[in-house]
């Protein structure tokens, strides 16, 4: 990386609940798709073809436009061996890269540690949402978790003037010179980190102006916050947000719900890209969109149940646009317990991001050596 280049930034959008891969990138020309999806099916003539076998869900127009410009890599058949069909456990596996035992460290927590081993920048990584996803958990790594960028901070419930005084007092009370035992000292420095982080972050919305109007749903609003933080140039390298709790868990009434979800997500992804473009910031930002598993090949009459073998998207100027990996076969003898077989290990997907995008050593971050997928431009 040359010194004139800006540091690479990774944005992760987690689609919680298990997005139905078959109805996202639809194998419209496969008779097995129609056989398996008698009801929960995207009509063939509404699919936006990518080739003569698969195409986009009709609600993904804005993403298709980016795809046509070569800005979207579609990672097909992504998963891991012995798929787990519990939301929590499968998401844990994606977060920790530990399919065999329960891990406590997140892959991005480890990446942050590698970027900033001494924890000097309290804002190397920012999460948007309440509570920290395990992907970001790592002992000793400061990570800001922002519920609302406009109001983020300490003692936010207080009135303005009162709050200014209280914060002043807070910073004196937490000033780390007091030496009252290791645990209190740790609390003090953590409190100061939080204060510092909030102070820096509050600049972001003030500096920001944009012609892009994002949607009103929480994913759109958080992606807007992410754009605000990126364009404010605060040295943040990893930004994370999550679609509302298990919203993609479409056991029932899938066609209606799934259409709405992808209408929103597609528009948000396109808005986010356009926003960065407006701020000349697309060259150093890559977006990963993932989910914990795909869904069963056969529908259940109204929706689809938990399955395996999902689909992920990587978006940005630096991706090699197009299809990566193979679309998993729907043939009965190729299925695993009624589910699509993965052919891309998600840790390979991560390794590409960690090494080819972030410029870090992937092995310690993803817990081993996995075949990379060449979707980042060299």
């Amino acid at each position, binding site marked *: 990386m040359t010194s004139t280049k800006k540091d690479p930034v990774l944005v992760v959008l987690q689609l919680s609940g298990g997005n139905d891969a078959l109805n996202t990138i639809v194998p419209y020309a496969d008779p097995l798709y129609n056989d398996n999806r008698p009801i929960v099916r995207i009509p063939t003539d509404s699919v936006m073809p990518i080739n003569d076998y698969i195409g986009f869900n009709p609600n993904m127009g804005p993403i298709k436009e980016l795809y046509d410009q070569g800005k979207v890599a579609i990672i097909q058949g992504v998963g891991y061996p012995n798929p787990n069909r*519990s939301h*929590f*456990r499968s998401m*844990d596996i994606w977060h920790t890269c530990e399919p065999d*035992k*329960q*891990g*406590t460290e997140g892959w991005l927590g480890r990446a942050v540690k590698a970027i900033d081993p001494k924890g000097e920048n*309290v804002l190397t990584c920012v*999460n948007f949402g*309440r*509570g*920290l996803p*395990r992907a970001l958990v790592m*002992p000793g790594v*400061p*990570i*800001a*978790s922002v519920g609302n960028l406009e109001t983020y*901070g*300490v*003692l*936010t*419930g*207080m009135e303005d003037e*009162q709050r200014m*005084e*209280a914060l002043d*007092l*807070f910073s*004196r*009370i*937490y000033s780390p010179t*007091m030496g*009252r035992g*290791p*645990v*209190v000292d*740790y*609390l*003090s420095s*953590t*409190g100061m*980190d*939080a204060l510092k*982080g*909030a102070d820096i972050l509050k600049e972001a919305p003030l500096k920001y102006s944009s012609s892009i109007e994002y949607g009103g749903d929480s994913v759109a609003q958080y992606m807007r916050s992410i754009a605000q933080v990126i364009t404010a140039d605060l040295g943040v390298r990893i930004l994370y947000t999550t679609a509302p709790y298990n919203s993609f868990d479409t056991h029932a009434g899938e066609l209606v719900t799934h259409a709405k979800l992808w209408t929103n997500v597609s528009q948000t992804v396109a808005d986010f890209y356009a926003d960065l473009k407006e701020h000349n910031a697309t060259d150093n930002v890559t977006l990963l969109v993932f989910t914990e598993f795909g869904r069963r090949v056969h529908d259940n009459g109204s929706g689809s149940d938990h399955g395996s073998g999902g689909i992920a998207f990587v978006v940005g100027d630096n991706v090699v646009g197009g299809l990566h990996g193979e679309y998993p076969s729907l043939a009965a003898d190729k299925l695993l317990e009624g589910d699509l077989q993965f052919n891309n290990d998600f840790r390979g997907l991560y390794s590409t991001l960690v090494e080819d995008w972030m410029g870090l050593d992937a092995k310690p971050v993803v817990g081993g050596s996995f075949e990379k997928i060449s979707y980042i431009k060299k």
Partner: protein
Amino acid sequence: MANQDIALMAHLMRRAGFGATYEELQARAAKGYEATVEELLHPEEQPSIQMDLLERYFIDWKEMNNIETNQTYWTYRMVNTKRPLEEKMALFWHSILVVGNSKCEHGRQVRTQLERFRSQGLGSFKDTLLSLASDPAMIFYLDNQMSHKNAINENWGRELLELFSLGVGMDGKPNYSEDDVKVAARAFTGWTIGNSIPRYPYGRYLNNFFYNPNDHDDSEKTFLGETGRWNGEDVIDIICKQPSAARFVARHLYNFFVADEPQVPQWQRTPPKDMALIKQMEKAYFDSNYEIRSMLRVLFNSDSFKNARFARVKSPAEVVASTLKLVGGWESPKPGLQVIANEIRYMGQDLLNPPTVEGWHTGAEWIDSGTLVERINFCADQMGDTSKPGVQAIIKRLAAQGKSLTPNQLVDGCLESLGHYQLPQETRKHLVEHITKGGPVNTSSKDFGDRVAQVLQLIVSTQEYQFA
């Protein structure tokens, strides 16, 4: 009532329960410390929470299928129970004998385990282990249904020894061998779950324990030096006899109730902070036939406990429940409780869903910049709400102290009202300066309530309030 008695009672109630209001502390202190300890140790003598009324307000509390419902329900119990130690023991065992919703058929299955911890938590450790071993949630969580006579799965056998009963080692020596792990797994072959009733069309059913003698390895085995045709019960029998089992339970009780200890994996090499107290608890364990109540009686009545003020970082459940108890307003069911129960998760403790079979790491490991902000903002928002009955009670109590208060009196009054918290000189100095800047504190002035609430907000924002 002498201040020191109330301060001691505040300490006891923070540890053996989820804190208490000043009024409750006064009443308990009048009753006496030892009498209160006995009352806490016998929750069955206090009224239980009546579900029939609650289910009219929270209709999903009948089925208790999902995790949020269970978290809300548990929060309600922590705040309102008349049996605080029963609830604390449920949290204690839940943090050690871990089953997580992440690998469980549904939340109600975890809840049945919590019910057992409530009813058995102070009883015999052996009974607790036996019911754990036959709990369908645990069998599924640690894969024992996949452990067969001819092909064992060691998961349950290992965690039973390592995390649930003995620990890897003590006094520098290991407590068991790899062979013991395998033998434990063999002894528990055949302990499985029955076929489940399909979820559709009527909803979810609980799984049942099923013992399959045909899949049980009935051959002779040697476990921790004893040889016989051991089944699961025998293994638990032998476990409970071990000095290391007594040590394991005593150390966990100490870490949970007295002071933060190093995390469990370090116990083989790191001796307990207070060996004398641990030894007394070990003796109580054997004298009482493994009864937790007897061990806790020793613990709560010891000087080590009484002197260990503010030696533990509060768990998120403690932060939220104890703050809600102080500010009041949740004594009867009403909407909005789930939003508050969620705060416990935001602070890093997803109840019913511990991160791993090791449970949550405690002490300073609860804190990072995100969770600290959640703690401070939650507590300050609660304390700043002068419409809350508990906050009003504090304001009223301080107003009754005289026409005006010195800044020091205001700080002391607030610290006392919250449960006799203590602040370092430097912090107190900052607070007093802050109050002084606001002018004389006149208890009949219109802004008196707001000024009290602001001091309460500042106190709960300090490092010291994060300790119990």
